[in-house]
């Protein structure tokens, strides 16, 4: 009940803008999504998205000296792909993520802050490659020009180092957890995928500006 009460107070304060410690930030990183095993008869492959760059912006607010929240948007460039026996099939793809995380950190009066974050949001997967009648390894999966929206969980943590009164350097690692987008990477007829969840571990670094 205590937690629920604090959360209500936090959200109420956010909506009312009752605290003054707002900040915006930009960061870049590298997406390392987990792959999913695929089998077709006796043959096997892995499929998923290629590691790629991530660009992110966020709006954050310290609700208290130790608790805050962030609304974050990330853009991830990761082609869809299938790999088997030295052969790789790729297909252009991108992702958009929007999520809100609650952060718990050391005192925001300190020059260096450690923080942990957890939250939820959505991830939009877009297959935007050039479709071809024949795609290598299509016995495992079809890489598809379409889009899929999936719920997403976010956990992670990092460190903020104040460079100046209103500028901080920030490094962090996030794990974005979402259902695998089988609309974009569709199991081929007669093929099966071994997992239904996808983890995307993203180390990032950036700058935060206090408003």
């Amino acid at each position: 009940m205590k937690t629920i009460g604090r959360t209500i107070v936090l959200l109420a304060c956010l909506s009312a803008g009752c605290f003054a410690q707002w900040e915006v930030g930009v960061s870049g990183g590298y997406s390392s999504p987990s792959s999913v095993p695929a089998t077709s008869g006796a043959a096997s492959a892995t499929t998923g998205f290629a590691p790629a760059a991530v660009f992110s912006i966020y709006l954050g607010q310290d609700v208290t000296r130790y608790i805050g929240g962030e609304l974050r948007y990330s853009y991830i460039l990761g082609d869809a792909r299938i790999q088997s026996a030295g052969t790789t099939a790729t297909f252009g793809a991108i992702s958009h993520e929007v999520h809100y995380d609650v952060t718990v950190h050391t005192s925001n009066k300190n020059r260096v802050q450690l923080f942990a974050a957890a939250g939820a949001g959505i991830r939009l997967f877009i297959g935007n490659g050039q479709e071809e009648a024949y795609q290598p390894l299509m016995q495992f999966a079809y890489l598809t020009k379409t889009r899929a929206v999936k719920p997403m969980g976010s956990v992670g943590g990092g460190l903020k180092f104040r460079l100046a009164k209103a500028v901080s350097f920030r490094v962090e690692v996030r794990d974005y957890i979402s259902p695998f987008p089988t609309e974009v990477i569709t199991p081929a007829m007669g093929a099966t995928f071994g997992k239904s969840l996808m983890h995307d571990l993203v180390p990032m670094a950036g700058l935060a500006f206090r408003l």
Partner: protein
Amino acid sequence: MQLHGYAAAVTGFLLLIASPAPLPAAGFGTVIPVGGQASDIALDNSRGVVYAANFTANAIDVISLSDQSIHSSLNVAAQPAALALSMDAHYLLVAHYGNWTAQPNQQNLVTLIDLTTGGIQSFPTADSPLGAAFLATGKALVVTQTTFQIFDPATGAFQILNTLSGLSSVPLPNPAATYPQQFTETALAASADGYVVWGVGKAGTGAQVVFRYDAAHNLLATLPALSTPPLLARVSVNADGSQAMIGFALFGSNFTRGVVLAQYPDPVASLNITGSAIDGVNNIVYAQVPDAAHPTAGPPFSGSNVPVLSIMSASNLTVNQQLIMPEDIVGRAVLSADGQTLYAVSESGLMVLPVGQLNPYPRVAAGQEDVFLQSTPCSKGVLTQSISIFDPGNNHTDFTVSTTQAGVTLTPSSGTTPAIVQISVDPAAFQGQIGTTAISIAIASKTAVNIPPTVRLLVNNPAASQHGAIVDIPGRLSDVLADPVRNLIYVLRQDKNQLLVYNAANSALAATLPTGSTPAGMNFAADGQHLLVAHDNSQNISVFDMNALQPSATIALPFGFYARSVAASNAQTIAVARNGSAASASGGSSAWIGAEGGPSQVAVLDLAQNTASVPLALGVWTNSVTEHAALAAAPNGASVVLADANGTVMVYSAQANTWVAARHDFTALSGAIAASSYGSYIAGNNVLDGSAVPVGTLDASVGAAAGFAFLNQGGLLIAGSSASGAGAMENLPSVPSAAVKPTQLVEAPVQPGASSAFTRAVSPLSSGTSIVAHTISGITVIAWNYDAPVTPPSISSVVSVADGSQNLAAGGIVNIYGSQLSPSSVSAGWAPLPTTLAQSCVVVNGAPIPLFYVSGPEIAAQLPNNVSGNVSMSVLTPGGQSATYYLNVLGTAPSIFMTGTAGPLTGLAAVVRWNNGQLVTPTNPIHPTDYLEIYLAGMGATTPAVAAGMPGPSNPLAMVQTAPLVTLGGASLPVLYAGMAPGEVGVYQVDVYVPGGMPQGLQIPLQISQGGSTTTVNERVVN
């Protein structure tokens, strides 16, 4: 330097004259008379005018491109002979030819006109200037009777580049009917980038000079040349100066060898008629070159004496189209910057030819080059076939068709395009002719601006006992060769400059590769990978990598050599090349450019360096043969035999690496030529031993030997006694041997002609499955066991070719399976489809049906449009008639073709997304807003009706009479078109739009229903 004045002063010299109306066009284009004789033109795109040098009126006429009339005329000094416009259109340079015999009238000078200010300056030259061309440097190359000079328009200074005497010495005055460029005998032109100038001097008289100036490196190269007929002073250059059309010949920039890349075949001499322009962007040469078919003796024009503009490939001068012009081109031709309009000096002045906008002009063309009709047990009565007559620009153009051959009826014999003309042949008129009769069908039009092609009608009337499957190949074929390793057949087509590659398994055309001009003979290099092709009108040898089916670098022949025959041994690769008489006449220093035959020599090819050399001697004998000599290499590469029409036979030994035998035991030779791996040779009907000593003769009772192929110690002889008779083949167990019983072939082999004394009319396939003969209609494929007894055919099943189902509809395409259905595997070459292939035919309810393909176990054919219910089918071959097979035929039975391929995927439904032009598959799924093309068979009658065997028309389209319903996952799709696929036989096309809201999934049924029949395929649909 004399200052003549500036803009205001010039105004007084500008004579505004009444623009004469363009002459009414007798053909294609417009003539603008200049009231004198034009000697040169320059196109000023920036001002929208053409400057015409009026040689006899001493003026520069300024002709507006907008209204095609003379707007003004600028008086200049006497005899303006040549023009050059600077690249920035600032200056117009005029060369005045003043080579008067009476010195007081001497006026050798150039006039520089500043087009921005109107200023005119004159600069005297020591002797008569003959031509000029501006360079990228802003300076001009000026050629006089004795010098090449660089002229700087900014300073008026001349700088002598080189001297060369006697580029022209024709004096003024001269008798009437001497044209301007007969005086100057010189022309030059710059590349579009201004860095290269090509030219020719002394054109029209004996020894000529071809020259090329490289402005970037200030290098002038000259090439003495002798030409038969003479090259006229007409020069056009491609964009980068790497090629130039001079007279009738296309030159490359290598002045050391292989300089003539191609030349117009069979040009005839003319005093002043010739002109050309190169469109480098579209790889086209526009040219008028008088030839034997259109000698163009000048006006009045009638009969074949008409001015003809040939539209040719800039690669090898293949003539693709010929248009009739109002009058002859007698000077420079230039193409507008957009390539749409050709301006040329013509008899009356300037001729404007809208070469880039041909569609509005009436033209007539035929849908087929050949029509092949064969009497068979299926067609004992009148033989019929249709040809389409059309206008490439979709105009309604009048035409007539005619033939002088008795027994051939053309219906209708006249009309308006588009039209279908039925050719009917009464076999009774061809009684006794058991081979093929070639008949010309002439197409004419009163209004068409093109020269319509002639259609070749081939009537083959064999008995059932004659063997071979004829593959009709249009055009003039010069050589046929079966690949010694690959299952391919090669055919040289001279009139289109093509190497045709056929798949020996089904005799279908597999590839078409361009050669040089007039390919004459071919053979493999010793590596067995590269095919060498000799040309009668190119000074090089084409090389093709037959593993890749791609051309390789050509072999450049020495000056003046045109190879006709080539053969490779284990040591040397040899060619026989004609070389005219230039080598002796000029001490071997001139490039001979000959349109005709002449003395020949043997050249040795260097395949590593892509060059060739001419040895002084062939062993202990002189290197001199006639143009009708030919070569044949032994299959093991040990030797090469040379047979000459004058009766000489020579033998080259690879082991000795020299010519080891030369004899003259005959007064003349022609026909077959062959070499064995065992030291025997064939020349004509004669068998020779390894020393070229005659040791026997071939059986002459079957006619002259047209071809011989050694097989081990024996060989195959093909012979014929008349072109329209049967061919004969003998399989000799040894050579020489007693005559064996000949087997009659369906038609005669080709016979030696005026351009080729020796023929290779037979070539066994490496697979040992069949033998290819070069015969009257093209090639004839003869089964290896052609003389074995044959058995009647048998039908086991008939299914739709689209999906293998037994849903058969009138007009549908079917596969007939069985045994002994045909003695050979042959595909129909083009539509309309024949009803006989390889002496096999199929009758449905007693009438023959069109055939796509025949082979022993399978026939693909099209059902007639007018049958339904329970119908009978039989196959007839030389072996007899099959038992009657019954099949149920519906009015409509749509079947989607399941014949698509993508990568390794086969059997895909023929459903194509317009979005990317690829078949729908799970990785190329259907999306909302897609347009789909679905290809089917069996959709029944159309409006207008299309006869079986004929392709679907494009204008108007043939729409199905029973509209189909198309659904995707149960939801209706709007049908945009349902009818025959244009250009395809028996293939229908349904175009649909996919709206939003369609069901999604991996297996969504796409269903087409028509007239109670339904066909379904499952496709993936994704939003």
